[in-house]
């Protein structure tokens, strides 16, 4: 299992366990965190926005043009913002840390 730490809007850190191949959006939703993912990962909304810990940002797969366009609509955009539906978890992301935007 892969470990991921998601810090919620109140600053509480949640340790989540994931199987390889799952998206961070799926894992966060399964843990009842407020990650809506209304378009279910089809890059039609930005309701699964997360802010990746700067130490981990460069280790994620490169951002696509579609994801970048969608992130460009986000009001609380940060330098390491990503859509969690596009973060596919694998062993090399074991220990990934992200935060939910305020």
């Amino acid at each position, binding site marked *: 299992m892969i470990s991921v730490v998601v810090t919620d809007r109140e600053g509480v850190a949640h340790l989540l366990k994931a199987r390889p191949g799952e998206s961070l959006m799926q894992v966060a939703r399964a843990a009842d965190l407020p990650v*809506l993912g*209304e*378009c279910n990962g*089809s*890059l*039609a*909304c*930005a*309701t699964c926005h997360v802010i990746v810990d700067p130490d981990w940002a460069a280790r994620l797969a490169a951002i696509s043009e*579609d994801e970048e*366009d*969608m992130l*460009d*609509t*986000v*009001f609380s955009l940060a330098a390491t913002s990503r859509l969690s539906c596009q973060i596919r978890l694998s062993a090399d992301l074991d220990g990934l840390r992200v935060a939910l935007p305020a």
Partner: protein
Amino acid sequence: MSAGLASLAAVETTMATPQMVLDGIRNRARAELPSQVDAIDRDGVYPREIMASLGAEGLFSSHLHAQTRLARADLGMAIRSMAAVAAECMSTGFCTWCQDANGWYLENTANTALRERLQPGIGSGAVMAGTGMSNPMKTLSGIESFKLKATRVDGGYIVSGVLPWVSNLGQGHWFATVIEDATDPSHLIFAMVQCGQIGVEIRQNARFVALEGTGTYSVLFRRAFIADEMLLADPIGDAVKKILPGVIMLQTGMGLGVIEACIQLMRESNRTHGATNQYLPKGPGYFEDAAAGLLDDILRLAATPTETDAGFRKQVLSARLRTSEMALEAAQSALLHAGSRGYLQGSPVNRRLRESYFVAIITPSIRHLRKELAGLEAH
């Protein structure tokens, strides 16, 4: 003849009875939609030209007092006209609802300049328009949060965010939505937006199980400027409360059309399988009576569409809920009447089932309606 009398005479010659308008729409829909309905439903063909020709018959104007060719604006006629279209193709019926709802927002705005600029085109079908009110309606019911946020600048607002699933859109089409002030969440702005204006992009990223040709897109706002001239209400005040009963009642036209089509499918099945189908618990006669009763109730409510008291809202939500549930039941019954013939790819029953699910899930969905009704019961 004086200029005043001449213009009066022109109005009289273009005035039509409700039956004339309804017959014109039904005949046009029957002539143009059957050959296109599968391409619209499955292949994503947007029926732009058909919408324009139905608009020329008065499909989008019955409920708009400055555009209607009837003696007076009549929301009930708009519902019946939409039902006639949805009975042939609910995708086109849904596009009709989008167009009608937008015209209704303009009908009820205090921004007369905006109404005079846009409503004639929307009422005639020369200009297409949608409604981005799903997120606002859910947010006002405590189900979601606002997806668009604005900051005030000289002459308007700068808006960012994404609205997923807005329909009857294309380049140059208009839609209306509600935007939250980023610095004051209690300040809401009701605005008209045009697809393709700077900072507003439409994107089609998903496929649906039906209604593919309804021009349904995600709308991306990237620091888009919404000018004060484009505001339907700011602050929103009672504007949404005033328009919502009409918007929700208009949606019943989609469901009534599906029910009418399902009754017809049941009758067709009974021609060959009536001896067996008579044992089914509900048949076309049951649905015909139930739909007639539902239509009577809807038309009574539609006669006073801008009432806002709780009792009226409850009746409107109940009628909308009955429409959804009856459409689901009628589509299922159509399948039970058709048997395996209805279970084939491309069968009309197959499409009607998928259309009835849409009536049930479009905002306000059945679960949303039940939540609202439970809230009204509790008070």
